């Protein structure tokens, strides 16, 4: 029941907004629909916590503690982003960067995107998962190109082609998976694509096929995760799209893509053993972390900067999943959570910052504390959090990841050390002058809504100092599932 609502509400919302998206109350409607989704999905979460995993709709939908926590996270960030986008898009409209018609597209696509992601999370069918991912891609392509500027078109085009090709690889991987499953499960009632069934028989699946399948799936979904060297679409898309979209892209979409990869990893591990997928993930992770850090060093555009930082963090998370084991998986899940909370809040503040300064070029943004302390402190605290300074939660996960790596794969720690150090120097040396110093920019036409920012940061802070036992238990369960 909840599941139906969770999936239905966003679709309904997108339809409604496709009709009334241009109206005055569209933004509020958007927020309201997201709120509804949030409520329903939290009901779902509660239910799963109480009764454990559930399998519904002819086994087409499957909820366990791994994806339900992502569902909750997605719905929550979706809601806060909707809250943020209300004043933000107003200001954009006021600045004449978007027309009401575009706003209609924006709102409806926003809901569609949320729907697609939730579907990708909830479905039990690997094929459906693929379809949902593709749908998410398509909807975000339109969102990225919202401004219809040369740059945004270029970004959208690259995004489309790269992710399209990637997703095609994923499809081939899925086909191979199906092919392998057929050998054992047969094709009665097309159960051969259901993750639960595959998971049940993963021991008997043909390792050679699954090895190949994993390669294609990894390249495919990895493109959407933004793993180097498949990451090239990510900074452009983050920089050129409207800020709320950047927020959900790096806050949610990357997580969902990574979720897909991990689901596949679980299956593959069952048949080919740990080392192959583990090493692939670790290599990708380290490469992304280091490359991302060095890219950070040379950024001038604020949103691009944080786009690359997303690459770096996705790398760290992937690395952690590659390490495997209860501690590392726990850390990775925690890092997914805090990263999406922190990063989205950073994008909120970054968006308002560039609006106040009238440019996304960081040289043009100065003295935010002087203009609006909330924006200034938001950006400062957010960056500090994302850089893994305690007592923020990002540190908690990095603590676990680093210490685990130090014992299990000491060779990898120098790379992580370099990545973290360079990233710190790069981001902080850019953020400090933006927040501090003098400025003479005028205040914004509409008052920015920074409540979400501080809510997110407060949550991250809490996670760094105290984790509710329920949440911890939940993470542990998820970590166990991933194995």
């Amino acid at each position: 029941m909840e599941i139906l609502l969770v999936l239905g509400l966003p679709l309904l919302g997108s339809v409604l907004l496709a009709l009334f998206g241009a109206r005055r109350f569209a933004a509020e409607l958007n927020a309201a629909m997201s709120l509804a989704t949030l409520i329903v999905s939290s009901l779902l979460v509660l239910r799963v916590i109480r009764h454990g995993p559930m399998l519904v709709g002819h086994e087409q939908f499957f909820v366990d503690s791994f994806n339900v926590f992502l569902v909750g996270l997605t719905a929550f960030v979706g809601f806060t982003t909707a809250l943020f986008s209300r004043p933000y898009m107003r200001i954009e409209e006021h600045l004449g960067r978007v027309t009401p018609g575009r706003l209609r597209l924006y709102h409806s696509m926003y809901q569609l995107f949320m729907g697609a992601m939730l579907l990708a999370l909830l479905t039990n069918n690997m094929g459906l998962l693929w379809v949902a991912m593709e749908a998410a891609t398509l909807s975000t392509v339109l969102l990225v190109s919202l401004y219809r500027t040369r740059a945004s078109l270029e970004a959208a085009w690259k995004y489309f082609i790269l992710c399209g090709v990637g997703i095609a690889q994923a499809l081939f991987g899925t086909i191979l998976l199906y092919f392998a499953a057929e050998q054992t499960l047969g094709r009665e009632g097309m159960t051969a694509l259901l993750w639960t069934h595959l998971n049940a028989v993963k021991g008997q699946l043909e390792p050679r096929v699954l090895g190949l399948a994993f390669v294609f799936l990894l390249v495919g979904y990895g493109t959407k995760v933004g793993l180097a060297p498949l990451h090239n679409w990510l900074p452009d898309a983050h920089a050129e799209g409207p800020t709320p979209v950047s927020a959900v892209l790096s806050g949610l979409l990357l997580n969902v893509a990574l979720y897909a990869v991990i689901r596949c990893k679980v299956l593959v591990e069952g048949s080919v053993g740990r080392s192959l997928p583990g090493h692939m993930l670790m290599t990708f992770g380290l490469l992304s972390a280091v490359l991302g850090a060095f890219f950070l060093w040379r950024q001038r555009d604020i949103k691009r900067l944080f786009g690359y930082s997303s690459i770096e963090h996705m790398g760290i998370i992937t690395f952690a999943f590659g390490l495997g084991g209860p501690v590392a998986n726990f850390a990775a899940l925690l890092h997914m959570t805090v990263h999406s909370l922190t990063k989205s809040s950073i994008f909120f503040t970054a968006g308002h910052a560039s609006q106040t300064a009238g440019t996304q070029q960081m040289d043009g943004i100065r003295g935010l504390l002087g203009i609006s302390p909330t924006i200034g402190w938001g950006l400062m605290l957010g960056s500090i959090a994302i850089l893994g300074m305690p007592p923020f939660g990002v540190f908690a996960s990095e603590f676990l990841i680093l210490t685990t790596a130090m014992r299990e794969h000491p060779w990898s720690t120098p790379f992580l050390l370099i990545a973290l150090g360079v990233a710190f120097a790069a981001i902080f040396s850019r953020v400090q002058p933006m927040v501090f110093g003098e400025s003479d920019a005028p205040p914004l036409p509409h008052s920015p809504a920074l409540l979400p920012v501080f809510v997110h940061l407060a949550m991250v802070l809490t996670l760094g100092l105290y984790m509710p036992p329920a949440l911890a238990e939940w993470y542990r369960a998820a970590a166990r599932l991933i194995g």
Partner: protein
Amino acid sequence: MVHDLRFLLILVTIWVVLGLAGLLGLHSIRLERLLFLLGALVAFSVAVLAGMFLAAGGTAQVLVLPLGLPDLPFHIRLDALSAFFLLLVGVAGAGISTFAAGYFRSGEGTAPALLGLQYHVFLASMAVVILADDAYLFMVAWETMALSSYFLVTSQHRIPDIRRAGFLYLIMAHVGAICILLSFGVLQGGSWQFTFDAMRGASLTPFWATTAFLLALLGFGAKAGLVPLHVWLPEAHPAAPSPVSAMMSGLMLKTAIYGMLRISFDLLHVRLWWWGALLLALGLFSALYGAIFAAVQTDMKRLLAYSSIENIGVIFTGIGLAILFETSGLRLFAALAFTAALVHALNHALFKSLLFLATGSVLHATKQRSLGKLGGLIRHMPWVATLALVGTLSIAGLPPLNGFVSEWLLLQSFLFTPQLPHAFLNMLIPLGAAALALTVALAAYVMVKFYGVIFLGQPREASLANARDANWLERLGLGWLALGCIVIGVLPQLALRSAAAVTGTLLGESVRPSATVWWIAPIASGQASYSGLILLLGIVGVVGVAFVLVRFLAHGRVRRTATWDCGYPWQTSRMQDTAEGFGQPIRHMFGGFFRMERDLPSPTDRAPRYRIHIEDRLWRGIYLPIARGVQRLADAIGVVQSGRLSIYLLYSFLTLIALLIFVLL
């Protein structure tokens, strides 16, 4: 009986609460004053508790808080070592907070409420660092400490140099923190327990132990300002408001010492003798380096910052000796060196904070930081001058004040190094003692320069004439610290007894605190001994007698006349010897250390000007190359993002092929 620990926790929380309470009145300076005073009170009670705990013998107390990571709740532990450092923090903190209550004015950079918040969080985090008993809580407190102090340093963030200093400070702190983290990662040794207890239990091979030790050395050395990791220190300390400089230099550096001791003497069981040699060498080098650079500074706060590097070096020398002795089984001497290090840490906390605070008062009174524009303040600020004199004499290592005690102890422990069973080493280390002596004497040189140029002589600027003395709160703070210097100097037994509890628990051996109440004889009564008390009484007595006799036999008539001008009546106060002049012999003798650029006026100049700029060779030698390297690498990597879609597709294609081949093989 755990309530010492409970009390301490409560006190720490009170600090945080005080900080938050300030937010009630964002700009009311009155409220902040009150809060700072309360903070001082809390610090004082922390000191008292810690002292009582040490006096009681220091049996460890443990507590687990329902916070932190799910599998890793916050553990806290109070044992002799942590109690000693808490004592340090409390005593010095009380003075600094009192001073701060009188110091901060509104309208200087950050709003007073935020300052108060950051200040008290800084204090609390230091206390937690010392109390922490698991890696996670330790790291959290450690980084919180760095962060809050960073914000305090950049409280006047409109000045670009201050921003630069803050950035340098934070990056060094963060990289250091990562090293410490990795060190913990080694220490937990496969048992996925991050509590210090588990680490004490873990058994490490010498290789891993060395890795842990070196990582810790990197991390804590960066925080303590050990050469060559010191570059942030002379930038950040002057940039901060004076009470903050005092806290950073007096207290924060000591937390690094604490961490070093905790890891190398408590958590690690394996210890190799060459660790000690390494620390010894690094420490002596830092000490000499700091002293030499301090001697040529012209900014009073930079001078003090470099002198901090020197003192940290002295402390590390002590630790190194302790490790050397301990690994050779000479426990008593190890205890002696250890004690010297601890006591010197305590002393440095006292006199360095005192001096930084004094510079704060001077800064407020004159708006001048450059030694070239000060002078003669003893006439306008008698209070500050007198109390600063105490600090100056202490830091110069002169009896009967406290600085001498620790240096004496350290030299005493050096005397036993020939008993070390390492050929060459036991012949080399005496030279180390010589280097130490040189450093100590250099410190005296530096401090004479410091005090003489600021407080003595003629005022070098007309504006100095209307400098006002510190207000009563500031005097109180300064006085408290000065009192501390005198008490420890005169009754070193107190410090020794506290340290004895520490060495007793960590080394199983400790120096004899005192033969009698009169004097200390750490190794054996009848051996080398020292009594600050009698020295003080003696000098005072003789001076008194001499004074009375002179007055009695001769007379006390005084005629005030003009200064003798050597027959050149046009002397002005600008013709006094300057700070640069005072540093000149050092520049001449240790020229190799510096990177100097100076333009000397030619005799024919109409308006001759003399400018000298002195730089740290290590900065250009180590740090700039690193930065350039990263930049180059980043540029090289940037090429990857070429902007051409087909290239990107090619990447994906090649990745795919590569992975497929990888799978095939």
